[in-house]
C-alpha cells in the first residue's frame, strides 16, 4: 500500500541542480507545497460544504461558518481586552489579554473544543505512526475503547491512591491495553501477513461488543448501584483518578490537563521517529520493506512494534477522555465512538507531522463542537444539519488528501520533465 504521506525528497540532485538560487527556490516551493496542499485541501472541502449549504437551505455559508466558529469558541482569541489570569501554583493574578473568567461563553466553548481535540491528537498520532511504517491502522476506535475500559477499571479499583499515581497508573494501563489490542493486528501482519486493515476492523467490532457486554445489563462490570439494574453503564471512577482541571469549572467540564499529555505525546512521536533507532527502522520499513529487509532490519519486528506503539497512543486517547470528563462509560458511548475514525482524517490532513496533527485535531475538534446541538445557534443554522455537514467536510478532506499525494507527485514529475527537456536542448 502506498504511504499517503510521501515526504518530498529534494528533487534537485547535484548533477541536475542549476545555480544555488534555483535549488533554494525549489526547496521553498516544496516546503510551501507541504503546507499549501493541506490548506488548499481543507479550503476546498469547506468551499464545497458552503456550496451544499447554499444549494440546500439557501442560507449564507458565511454566517453558517461564523456561527460554527463562534460555537467552537474560536472567537475567544479575538476578544482581546484587559483581563487577569492566575499564576500557576500561586494565588497571584497578573494582567492577561484574554478573558479566562468562568462566565465567558467563548471561553467555555473553546474549552469544549480543546477537550474534543485532545483525543483526536492522540488517535491522529496512532494513525500517523502506523502510516510511517507503511501500515494503515483503521482500528483506532477499538484501541480507544479498550483504553477507556481499562482506564475506567483502574479508576474504579485503586481508590485512595495519590492522584498523580492513580492517573499515571490508569493511563499507563490504558496505553498498554491499546498496545496489546493493536499488537494483535501487528503480530498477525508480522507472522502470517494478515492485512492490518481487515484485522483492525474486526478488532474494532470485537472491542465494541465485548465492552458493551462487560458494562451492559447483567455484565460483570456493570455498576451495582441499588435500583439501577437496568442502566447499562459502568461504575464511576474515584475522584483521585480525575484529571485536574486547569481552566474553567471542575464540575462543568472545564479543560483538563489531558491536552498537555497529548502535546507531550506529539513531542514523543517526533523524538521516537526522528531521534531513535526504532524510529529510523520504522521509517525505513515504511519507505520500502524490501530494502529495509536487505539492510538487515527485521520487518516483522517493526510491523509489530509500530502497531503496538500506534495502539498505545489510541489507548491513551480513550483513557484521557474517561479520566478527563466521562468518568464512566455507558453502552451508547461505546457504540458511538468516532475518535479513531476522525483520527484518520487528522493524520492525513496533518501530513503525519506533529504540528500538522495538532492543528488538524483542533480543526476537527472545533467542527465537532461548533456543530453540536448545544453550541450552534439554531436560528442561524440547524445543528442537526451542521453535524452532518461536518461529516461531509471530513469525508471530502480525506478524499482530497488521499489524492493530493498524486497531485504533488504529478506536479514534481512535470517540473522535472520541464527542467530536463530544455537542458537537453540547450546544454552547451
Amino acid at each position, binding site marked *: 500500500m502506498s504511504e499517503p504521506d510521501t515526504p518530498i525528497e529534494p528533487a534537485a540532485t547535484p548533477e541536475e541542480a542549476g545555480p544555488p538560487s534555483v535549488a533554494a527556490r525549489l526547496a521553498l516551493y516544496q516546503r510551501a507545497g507541504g503546507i499549501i496542499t493541506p490548506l488548499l485541501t481543507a479550503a476546498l472541502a469547506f468551499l464545497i460544504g458552503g456550496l451544499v449549504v447554499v444549494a440546500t437551505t439557501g442560507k449564507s455559508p458565511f454566517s453558517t461558518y461564523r456561527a460554527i466558529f463562534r460555537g467552537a469558541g474560536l472567537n475567544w482569541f479575538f476578544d482581546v481586552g484587559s483581563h487577569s489570569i492566575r499564576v500557576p501554583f500561586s494565588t497571584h493574578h497578573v494582567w492577561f489579554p484574554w478573558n479566562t473568567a468562568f462566565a465567558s461563553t467563548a471561553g467555555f466553548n473553546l474549552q469544549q473544543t480543546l477537550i474534543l481535540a485532545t483525543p483526536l491528537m492522540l488517535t491522529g498520532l496512532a494513525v500517523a505512526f502506523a502510516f510511517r511504517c507503511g501500515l494503515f491502522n483503521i482500528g483506532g476506535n477499538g484501541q480507544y475503547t479498550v483504553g477507556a475500559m481499562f482506564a475506567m477499571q483502574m479508576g474504579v479499583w485503586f481508590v485512595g491512591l495519590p492522584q498523580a499515581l492513580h492517573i499515571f497508573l490508569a493511563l499507563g494501563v490504558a496505553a498498554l491495553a491499546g498496545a496489546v489490542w493493536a499488537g494483535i493486528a501487528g503480530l498477525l501482519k508480522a507472522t502470517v501477513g494478515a*492485512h492490518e486493515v*481487515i484485522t483492525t476492523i474486526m478488532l474494532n467490532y470485537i472491542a465494541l*461488543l465485548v465492552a458493551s457486554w462487560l458494562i451492559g445489563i*447483567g455484565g460483570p462490570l456493570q455498576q451495582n448501584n441499588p435500583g439501577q439494574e437496568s442502566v447499562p453503564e459502568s461504575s464511576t471512577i474515584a475522584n483521585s483518578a480525575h484529571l485536574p482541571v486547569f481552566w474553567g469549572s471542575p464540575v462543568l467540564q472545564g479543560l483538563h490537563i489531558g491536552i498537555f499529555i497529548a502535546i507531550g505525546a506529539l513531542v514523543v512521536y517526533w523524538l521516537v521517529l526522528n531521534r531513535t533507532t526504532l524510529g529510523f527502522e520504522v521509517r525505513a520499513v515504511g519507505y520500502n520493506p524490501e530494502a529495509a529487509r536487505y539492510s538487515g532490519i527485521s520487518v516483522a519486528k517493526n510491523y509489530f512494534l509500530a502497531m503496538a506503539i500506534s495502539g498505545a497512543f489510541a489507548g491513551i486517547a480513550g483513557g484521557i477522555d474517561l479520566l478527563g470528563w466521562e468518568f464512566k462509560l455507558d453502552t451508547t458511548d461505546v457504540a458511538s465512538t468516532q475518535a479513531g475514525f476522525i483520527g484518520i482524517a487528522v493524520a492525513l490532513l496533518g501530513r503525519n507531522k506533529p504540528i500538522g496533527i495538532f492543528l488538524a485535531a483542533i480543526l476537527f475538534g472545533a467542527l465537532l463542537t461548533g456543530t453540536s446541538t448545544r453550541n450552534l445557534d439554531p436560528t442561524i443554522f440547524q445543528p442537526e444539519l451542521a453535524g452532518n455537514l461536518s*461529516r461531509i467536510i471530513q*469525508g471530502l478532506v*480525506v478524499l482530497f488528501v488521499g*489524492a493530493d499525494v498524486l497531485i504533488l507527485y504529478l506536479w514534481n514529475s512535470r517540473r522535472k520533465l520541464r527542467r530536463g527537456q530544455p537542458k537537453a536542448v540547450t546544454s552547451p
Partner: protein
Amino acid sequence: MTAPTEPLDSRVYRWHPNTRKVGIAGMILGLVAFWLALPPLNTRAVALPVAVGFLGVAAGIWAVSRGERRTGWGAVLVSVLGMACGVLATRATVGHLEVVVTWSALIAATFRYATPLTFAAMGGLFSERSGVVNIALEGMMLMGAFFAILGADKTGSWEAGLFTGMAAGAALALVHAFFCINLRADQIVVGTAINFLALGITGYAYIDIYGLAGTPDHIPTVPDVHLKFLEHIPPTSLGNFLEDSIGTMNLMIWLSFLLVIVTYIVIFRTPTGLRIRSVGEHPRAADTVGISVYRTRYLAVTTSGALAALGGAYLSIGFLGSFGENLTAGRGFIALAALIFGNWRPFGAFGAALLFGFASAFAPQLQNVDSWAQYNTLFQALPYLLTLIAVAGIIGRSIPPAAVGRPYVKQ
C-alpha cells in the same frame, strides 16, 4: 494489500490436508452439539448446542470455500442436524423452552438478517475480484438505503425506489473508482473517505428533506412473496414448517438468492468474469492480451456500488419501511467480513452471510432465558472473531486476489 510472498500454487496445494481436518472437526462439533443434550450431560441450556453447532457450520463453510467440498458440506449438514437434534432434546426434557427456539421463526429471521449482507458481499466480490479494495461497502449501502426510500416516497413506487437507490450507490462507487483507478489514490483512504461522505450526505439530506420527524408512514415497500402451496405439502407438520419459515419472504430475499447464482455464473462462467478475475490477479498480463484494465475495474466497482446499495435498500424499503441516520450501522463491514470469510467466492460468502445472519437472529433469542440474556452481545461478536481467525489462520487462510489494493499504471 501485501503481495503474497510465495507462489500461489504451492500454498494452494499445501492447504488441502489441513482444510479437510477443519471439515472433519466441523462434523465432530456437530455431533458434540447433539451429544451435549443427551443423558450423560443433559445440558438444558439451548444456547450451548446452538453455539457448538454454529462453530461446526462455520468450520464447514470455511472448508467448502477453500476447496474441500465434500467434507465441508458434510460438516455443515452434520452440524445443522446436530444443532437441531440437540435443541429438540433439550426441549423434550424441559417443556417450556419452546419460547427460545422456534425453528421456523429463526430461519425466517436468519434470511432477513442475511439478505443485506448477501447483497453487499456480492457487491464487494465484484470490486475486490477486479483488484479494487472496497471498504466503502458500508457507505454504498447507506446511500442505497436513503435514496431508495427517497425515490419510493417521491414517486410512489418501490421499483423506482430500488432504481434510485442503486443509482445513488453506483454514483458513489464511481467516485471511489475515479479516485482509486485514475488518481491511483490509496484505496483504503478513499474507502474511508467514502464512508464519511455517505454518512454525511445521507444524514444531511435526511434532515433537510424529512426533518426531525423522520420518514413518513406508508412509504411503498417491496412486497412479500406468499407461497401458499407450501402448507399443502404432504406431512402437515412439514408443510406448516415450510409455510412459517419461507412461506412469506420479502421479494428481495429471493432476489438475493438469485443474485448469488448469477454472481457465480458471471464471475466463473462468462468472459466478463474471466476479465474481472484476470484484472484482479495480474493486471499487466490482462492488459497485454488486450483487456482494458481501467474499463473492467470501473465496471466492477460500479456494479459493486449498485449491489451494495440494494442491500441498503432492502433495509429501508424492504424490511423497515423507514430510514434513520446511520441506518446500516456497520452491516457493510459485516458483509466485508462475510466476503473474506467466504474466501472471495460467491457461495462461500453467501454461506458466511447466512451464518452471520443466524448469529444476529439467534442472539436476541438468548434474552428469553435469564441466565443467558447477558451473552446476547457477546454472541454477536462471533462473526468478527471467526473472520479474524479466517484471515489469520495458519490453516485455510483467506487469500485475497493477488492484485487487490494495487493501482494499475498503464504503460
